[in-house]
């Protein structure tokens, strides 16, 4: 696999390394100062000098070392192109349109922190690995009807995917770019609709996920309730409609969100309280979430 570098990236990495180190700076100056006298093709000459120093000072090896964790990429890709970016939020790897190469936008300062760079590359290249994995089933598609919806779903998708990746890397005993707690906080912000408990269990489920696919992550990004898993008990506020629009037998307001009485037996104190106010009411008549909440409050379980 060929590796291509953005000349600006090389220059900043090399200069950043030399800055503050008199010996390296001296070497750097000795290499570039003759070029000031040169006419024509000077930029290419600078680039060659920078590339030489880049390799000599070991930055190329660091990159290749990170790539060795992904032998499958060597098989499937022809090139990896590294571009300089100034902002952490713009850093990412993506496949080229022909699916034969990878573009990687990276801040030059990454190269000055070998361990940090390795963690970063490991995470980004796992994204690429997933994208090339037929089992994962990645597709580049529109996922929302409007820019706002698209943004929201993609944001959530990104958070879920990041967690899924870091969970797998952790289980492989590899250092991740961000810790579990940080990922949990990202999850929390991406899914504010979930309660604290739901957030914990949802994030844990993704962190420990095995064999999740693009479609799995996308459906969870679109419908937060699915984060809780197929077998999980879905709380009323996340449930689908039970009997849409029919009136609650207690308050008579039309209800789309129903209370869950599945674990409330006839002997439950709550049932008794409801029947004090509504003697004809039966368990199977149902109850809207708000009325249930009130009676929960009365029995002290809210």
């Amino acid at each position: 696999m060929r590796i291509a570098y953005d000349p600006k990236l090389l220059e900043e990495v090399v200069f950043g390394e030399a800055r503050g180190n008199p010996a390296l700076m001296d070497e750097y100056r000795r290499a570039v100062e003759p070029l000031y006298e040169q006419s024509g093709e000077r930029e290419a000459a600078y680039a060659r000098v920078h590339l030489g120093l880049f390799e000599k000072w070991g930055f190329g090896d660091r990159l290749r070392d990170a790539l060795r964790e992904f032998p499958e990429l060597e098989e499937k890709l022809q090139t990896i192109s590294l571009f300089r970016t100034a902002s952490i939020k713009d850093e990412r790897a993506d496949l080229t349109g022909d699916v034969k190469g990878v573009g990687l936008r990276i801040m030059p300062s990454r190269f000055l922190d070998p361990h940090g760079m390795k963690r970063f590359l490991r995470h980004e290249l796992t994204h690429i690995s997933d994208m090339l994995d037929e089992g994962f089933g990645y597709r580049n598609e529109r996922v929302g009807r409007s820019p706002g919806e698209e943004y929201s779903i993609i944001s959530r998708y990104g958070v879920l995917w990041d967690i899924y990746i870091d969970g797998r890397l952790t289980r492989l005993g590899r250092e991740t770019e961000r810790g579990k707690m940080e990922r949990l906080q990202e999850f929390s912000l991406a899914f504010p609709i979930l309660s604290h408990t739901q957030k914990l269990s949802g994030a844990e489920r993704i962190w420990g996920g095995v064999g999740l696919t693009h479609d799995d992550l996308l459906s969870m990004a679109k419908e937060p309730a699915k984060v809780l898993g197929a077998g999980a008990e879905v709380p009323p506020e996340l449930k689908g409609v039970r009997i849409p629009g029919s009136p609650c037998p207690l308050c008579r307001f039309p209800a789309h969100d129903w209370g869950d009485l599945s674990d409330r037996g006839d002997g439950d104190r709550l049932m008794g309280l409801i029947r004090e106010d509504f003697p004809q009411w039966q368990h199977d008549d149902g109850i809207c979430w708000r009325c249930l909440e009130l009676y929960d409050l009365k029995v002290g379980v809210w």
Partner: protein
Amino acid sequence: MKVTRRGFIKAGVGAGVGAAAAAGLIGQQALRLRALEPALEVANPLEYYPDRSWEEVYQDQYQYDSSFTWVCSPNDTHSCRVRSFVRNGVVIRSEQNYDVHRYADLYGNKATTAWNPRMCPKGYTMHRRLYGPYRLKYPMIRQGWKQWADDGFPELTPENKTKYKFDARGQDELLKVSWDDANTYIARAMVNIATRYSGDEGARRLKDQGYPQEMIDDMKGAGTRTFKFRGGMGLLGVFGKYGIYRLNSCMAFLDSRIRGVGPDKALGGRNWANYTWHGDQAPGHPWVHGLQTSDCDFNDLRFSKLIIMDGKNLVENKMPESHFFIECMERGAKIVVIAPEYGPASTKADYWLPIRPQTDTALFLGITRIMMDGKLYDPDFVKQFTDFPLLVRTDNLRRLRAADIFPNYQNADISQGPSFKIQGLTPEQREIIGDFVVWDTATNTPRAITRDEVGRKMVRDPALEGRYNVRTVDGKTVEVMPLFEMYKIHLKDYDLDTVTQITRTPKELIERLAHDIATIKPVGIHQGEGINHWFHATEMNRASYLPLMLTGNIGKPGAGSHTWAGNYKAANFQGSAWTGPGFAGWVKEDPFNPNLDPDAHGRDVKVKAYCKGEEPAYWNHGDIPLIVDTPKYGRKVFTGETHMPTPSKIIFFNNVNLLNNAKWAYEMLKNVNPKVEMIISVDIQMTASVEYADFALPANTWMEFEGLEVTSSCSNPFLQIWKGGVKPLYDSRDDIVVLAGIAAKLGEILEDNRFLDMWKFVLEGRREIYMQRMLETSTTTIGYKLDDIMAGKYGEPGAALMLYRTYPRIAFWEQVHEDIPFYTDHGRLQAYSDLPEAIEYGENFIVHREGPEATPYLPNVIVSSNPYIRPDDYGISWEATHWDERTVRNVKLPWDEAKNTKNFLWEKGYNFYCVTPKTRHRVHSQWSDTDWNLIWDSNFGDPYRMDKRSPGVGEHQLHMNPQAAKDLGINDGDYVYVDANPADRPYLGWKPSDPFYKVARCMLRMKYNPAYPYSFIMMKHAPFIATERSVKAHETRPDGRALSEGTGYQANLRYGSQQSLTRNWHMPMHQTDTLFHKKKAYMGFLFGGESDNHAINTVPKETLVKVTKAEDGGMGATGIWAPATTGSTPAAEDEFTLRYMAGGLIRVEGES
């Protein structure tokens, strides 16, 4: 053919045409004549011609018989003079008067023409309110109440409350009654109720009813103290609205008679506040500079080079004056908005700082830290005008007083300085305040400093940094620090990363704003209800001043931190030692010594306060003060004595929709008002407050006033006096006449002419005498003659410029330019409070606190690790959920710990902040029944009411982030429920079987609005609430309108209201007895509470809600609301709209 004239012409033309064809010269004439040819030859054209009379309608609306000007004076601070045109005695239209450039003052100064034009669409439709179907047409009395009175006012036992429907006012009938009968019933009830609750027997009754002893003690035995009077934003009509407090003064006669006491002991009732109860005051302002509020004339904004709107929407809520800030874009200024949502103001901004609600304090603390760390401050201003150089003791957190360390210290003599000579400081106050101490860098010793030593009068060079040990007169060694040094410690908690986490504001924007404040001058910060309506507004107001204190952006054109909400400024008519009583001469004239000489000068009016201010917030909290049973100290009273309320037995209000606009309104209607024995509403129209009142007294509108009225504003320099131009339509009266009528009836019943004397000149039709007295004794109008103003001597009849020190008026201009003390105890802008209450509550420093409800974290947590913040938590558990426990619990945690705490409500799924700003097309609840305004006011306005579920031609709506709504399964346009904490809302003790619950639960339309962040919904405040009658109406009327039978009240919602989600919060910092500050309407100072000045500021935004689907938005409650299916609405854009938004409908030449 019968030859008629028409036929002849036709024949002749035909001949001409033939000739023209041959000769060619006559053609033009022939064509011209042909143009006159009738379409049909008819004998009577009127039978056949198209009817063109509709054109006359169009033309006639611009014809009029006469015109007049009046002042549109709702609570929006503008007071625009409007010209209305009259034909056949009917106002047919209104327009802007375009007159302001003519307004002048005594000295010939004139207003800038840039003020023109002034008037918004509310003034434009005022005549639709005047002639609309919702006016109060005659006095009314509640049937059950009348029966109670006719039965001799028996004690209101639970049985009698039910018998006379005190517990079901909204289901009772309102009966037409004459003015004389209404006044007689009211007067008789006042006598009866005052008697019932006077003396020991009255106290026993109140004790039995469950009132705390502190409230009963504050009555001092006077039953009249249970009377609560409220003139709705009195400045909107200084005589008719504020006049209700003069009527309250007369209650001292009643007390005198009942208890047999003299003028020395007689007491009137309580004057209910306005500004603070609306939540409109910036409650932190008195804590910074000692003044009630800092604001400026709006044309001062033109001088700003950096305008920061912090929770303030100057576009929608300052409609006639918003151009002043918008013009600044052309004048090279930078505009910044700090708000959770991307609102109208943000569209004008250079940059917008999104922020988590109620975290603005953290933002400003972060900015302050950046400025202090980078030494981006003006040390001279900091030393001369702020408390940063004053030394603070680290042992007890009080400021170091000179008497603490200098043996036998005597306060310096400042009796000839501005504190005494200008600001009205008294010797007693001087003794309490004492002198302060700075560290003199020249001598390296502590030095005493007085409150007069500000600006250039401060001769020493005080230290801002360093720690020092001083020896106190009682022999202790105490470490002290300049406050500046302490703030460096304090701000360690507010580094950029932490502030970003707290506020969720991007780092780079925080840094950019800090840099801009440090480098651009002048800087004007404008806060509004987006700040003041939160529980911790005090801290957010205080914090906004910090960067300005560092950079000297105070007291200069275009500079300052101002607040805008409500036309509160009684100080526009403030009195002083050198002018006379001013406004107090009208509302507080000594009833036992009224001046009856029509020629007397206003200075000769004697003033004595027989009434006491009170916050309606106490009534709004269940008619109780803040008393909490604490684990550590047992029963603890947090309400200061200067604030202590009394039980409410009569509520009498004017020009305010009090019950509709009460936070937690349904709790008031259901549980609190049954304890009130008489409720009187004076209004121009049918409101929910009237439906739940015992009396409705109809007032004249601004356009019908039969005599003069006066107003002015906090946001412009205009004195406005006017009367109406059309006769009253119904049996209504000017407010002042309504009040005088009740006083006269009391005098008649009690055979006491003193009541009549107090209203002598009103009853004689000479109210102008009182007006002239006020003008000649107010610091801002002294020298004006009412007659001259009305004759147009100052440009426009009825108008003149207030006599301000500068035009535009600039807050604290004198302080900064003439070295006058600010109105704090030490005379400086204050970043630190050493009041015992502030220290106990952990708010001695300006510090970020999470709200007691609206937060995902531990309610009310103080975010700090500063060792000099030492709050008392009273032993209250972190698990406590009661609203009062959350209110007083003071837990201090650094952010790293605070961010891991939880709010039980958030955990229960109450994870939407709900903000309730003012509307664009209504003024609070006014215009809520005006058809045009309702149609403009929401996305669901429909004059045809195609969907019969709509309560009227308009419908209240909720704004919500589309993705948040979709996650909840809610479509654009659906009806939704908005519910808050079930423990107390919509009212205490609600249950599904109670029919009133159906009235009280909020249900309304929801509109997708991508401008709002995910966990953030918006519902404009003060719609006309659903009442028992309006709910019954829309559930039973064939047309489905929420139009009450019997009263004609028109609700804006099918069920509930914005107030279903709100409640009152008794903020402890608003209830101190020790805050030293300026009186609101007199040049003088006081300690502790004063209505509208230092008092509970209500906070409707302090709530968390849950949103759930109620009904489909489509017709017949099926499917999606039709407009949301067009492809042109947010989050449902079709391909065409998406292309349009992407600019794809325009092809650029040369591009494919």
